């Protein structure tokens, strides 16, 4: 969690928040911790500075003593009734030790600290803002009034304290939001919204650029924020009325951007720079994996003219998104419409946040890639199912032709031998001749109709056996993982390229692997070993499964022989046919309880070329 990294600030007192530790006493942000009766249990340095400078302690004082309002009891009641872990914002006035009254925005959150129900109050000083309001009021009626009001609204929403004071609850919300989705665009949007949303960092604009690893360029992807001053004004006015939390901001994604295009996408998508030193400051951030700050872009040599033209911002901060060892991209954030400097505190928090975002981004990218792979696998599987169907039909036809031809051979053959013993021109001889001729005619019909209905043309191409095996196994990766089956490959090197119909040989391998997985319900190992053997490559596919009983092993390649409740028993028959088509072969050895080995012979290219010629 991000707070784990902020803990190196002081010793005591400390409170435990989530799995990190926040050192309150030296924290600049004004924070009060209350018990449920409203007594101050602990406070930050910032809170003492704001409320009671010079005094030793606020500890033990009832928070109600600080109220400057007559209706302060309502306030106590409100915070006592807060739902657990949901932040709530109040506007109120506190009396300070100097005797003055301080206008404040208070974000209250009820939580558990070290097992104690605790209310965390984060205070935002609104006095500057209030003074400005008075100033604006004084200038009312003057010509520049409209312009000044815009400025004032901008300042109202982003007093320096607010930007530098990070709310504890928001960090939790950010991490929850990032964990909530693995869709790449949504993660990108969450990252940018967190950077720009008022309850979080509250930058004016945020841009996200990603590294294209293949082409080694940094490319703009997404931008969040107003397009111009008018829009900034309008948005802030809406937001000041809405009092949104981060959740509400994030929930706007689908509503605001139904087409998935954010208003500033087109701005940043113009950015595309090669990743090499001295190119541009955004690229530098990728290369150095360091956050970089620009306070005067126009005169900063690190900022390229393209970058300046695209961002059109004089001060901004660049933080890299680093996951593991790699920078996946950068976030650029600026305060273009607020006209206020980015502080080191902003940079520091943004960097911490960026690490978190990078992990989410990395996960999302991995997921997207995975989904693409799964889609490809699905398509290949569809094709295989289709070709398996065709093969099954071919196999059945061949089997029918075979089954009919065998008795015809016997009938016709014996008729012929009878005919030889009969006197020529006898009635019996003529009848016998008819039998001979009719069987021959049937044989011819078989040859023309059935024998060649099976598609046996091979689409031969040179291929790498090791790759072919790898591809077949990856198609069945889910099944292999699920059944805890390990795959071992030992392919003799160098192995010449083979001239094969890769689809058909892949189907053979898939069939054998599937059978092997089924033979190992408790998991096991499938090993592929290949070596040259004369004019062939011998590929042995072995499993450590239950083995095939000796009384059925002679039948396993026969069409329609099966021991399974599903399927037609054509799998191995088709395997053998495909290997025969290549001029190859397959044989099997098995030992019950130990495993089965299929020994495939694949012809080396000169042999398969002969076969193809004939």
């Amino acid at each position, binding site marked *: 969690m991000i707070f784990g990294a902020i803990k190196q600030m002081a010793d005591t007192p400390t409170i435990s928040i989530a799995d990190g530790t926040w050192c309150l006493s030296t924290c600049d942000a004004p924070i009060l911790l209350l018990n449920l009766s409203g007594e101050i249990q602990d406070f930050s340095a910032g809170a003492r500075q704001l409320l009671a400078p010079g005094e030793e302690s606020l500890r033990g004082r009832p928070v109600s003593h600080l109220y400057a309002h007559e209706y302060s009891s309502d306030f106590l009641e409100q915070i006592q009734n807060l739902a657990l872990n949901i932040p709530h914002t109040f506007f109120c006035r506190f009396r300070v030790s100097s005797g003055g009254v301080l206008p404040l925005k208070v974000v209250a959150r009820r939580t558990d600290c070290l097992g104690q129900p605790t209310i965390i109050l984060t205070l935002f000083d609104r006095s500057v803002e209030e003074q400005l309001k008075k100033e604006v009021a004084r200038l009312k009626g003057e010509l520049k009034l409209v312009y000044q009001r815009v400025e004032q609204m901008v300042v109202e929403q982003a007093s320096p304290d607010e930007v530098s004071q990070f709310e504890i609850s928001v960090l939790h919300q950010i991490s929850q939001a990032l964990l909530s989705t693995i869709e790449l665009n949504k993660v990108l949007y969450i990252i940018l919204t967190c950077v720009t949303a008022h309850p979080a960092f509250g930058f004016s604009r945020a841009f996200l650029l990603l590294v294209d690893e293949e082409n080694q360029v940094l490319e703009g992807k997404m931008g969040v924020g107003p397009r111009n001053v008018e829009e900034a004004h309008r948005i802030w006015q809406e937001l000041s009325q809405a009092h949104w939390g981060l959740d509400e901001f994030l929930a706007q994604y689908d509503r605001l951007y139904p087409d998935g295009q954010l208003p500033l996408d087109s701005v940043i998508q113009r950015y595309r720079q090669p990743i090499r030193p001295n190119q541009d400051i955004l690229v530098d951030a990728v290369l150095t994996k360091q956050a970089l700050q620009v306070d005067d872009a126009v005169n900063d040599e690190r900022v390229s003219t393209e970058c300046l033209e695209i961002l059109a911002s004089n001060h901004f901060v660049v933080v890299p998104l680093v996951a593991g060892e790699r920078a996946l991209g950068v976030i650029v954030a600026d305060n273009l419409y607020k006209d206020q400097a980015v502080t080191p505190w902003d940079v520091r928090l943004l960097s911490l946040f960026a690490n978190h975002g990078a992990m989410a981004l990395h996960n999302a990218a991995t997921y997207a890639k995975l989904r693409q792979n799964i889609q490809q696998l699905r398509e290949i599987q569809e094709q295989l199912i289709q070709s398996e169907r065709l093969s099954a039909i071919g196999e059945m036809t061949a089997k029918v032709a075979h089954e009919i031809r065998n008795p015809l*051979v016997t009938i016709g053959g014996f008729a012929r031998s009878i005919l030889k013993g009969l006197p020529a021109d006898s009635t019996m001889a003529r009848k016998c001749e008819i039998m001979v001729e009719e069987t*021959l005619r049937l*044989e011819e019909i078989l040859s023309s109709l059935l024998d*060649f209905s099976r598609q046996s043309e091979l689409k031969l191409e040179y291929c790498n056996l090791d790759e072919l095996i790898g591809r077949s196994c990856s198609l069945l990766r889910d099944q292999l993982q699920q059944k805890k089956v390990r795959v071992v490959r030992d392919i003799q090197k160098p192995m010449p390229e083979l001239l094969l119909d890769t689809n058909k040989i892949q189907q053979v391998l898939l069939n054998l692997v599937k059978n092997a997985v089924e033979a190992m319900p408790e998991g096991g190992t499938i090993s592929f070993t290949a070596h040259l053997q004369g004019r062939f490559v011998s590929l042995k596919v072995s499993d450590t499964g239950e083995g095939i009983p000796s009384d059925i*092993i002679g039948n396993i390649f026969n069409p329609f022989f099966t021991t399974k409740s599903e399927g037609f028993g054509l799998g191995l028959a088709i395997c053998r046919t495909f290997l025969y088509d290549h001029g190859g072969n397959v044989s099997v050895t098995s030992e019950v309880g130990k495993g089965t080995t299929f020994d495939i012979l694949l012809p080396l290219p000169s042999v398969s070329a002969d076969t193809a010629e004939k």
Partner: protein
Amino acid sequence: MKGRILLVEDNELQRQLYREELEQQGYEVEIAPDGDNALAKVAACKPDLIILDVELPNRDGIETMRKLLEDQPDLPIILNSAYAHYKSNFISWGAQAYLIKTSDTSRLLEEVRRVLSAKHEKVIEK
């Protein structure tokens, strides 16, 4: 005696048919009903030619042929199958011929004659 032939055929009726035809031509015929049996018999029977069915129980004709040729690469083999598809594929393995089974046994007899006379010529050359 014109020559000794080992007929490897699982179909009993066809065994009978081919045997009669071959014996009528003066050949001596030994029978093996499957591949294993053929491998077991070949050493003792020393055939001049093997007629080998492809569809055989236990060890098919192709595998049987591979084993036979491992020991005797010059052994003449005629593949005789009711399957038509692999016709061209196994010549490269070392078979002298691949025949699609037919009731017209004259084609088989002709092939036997051709292969044996070729073998004979080879022996004389040596």
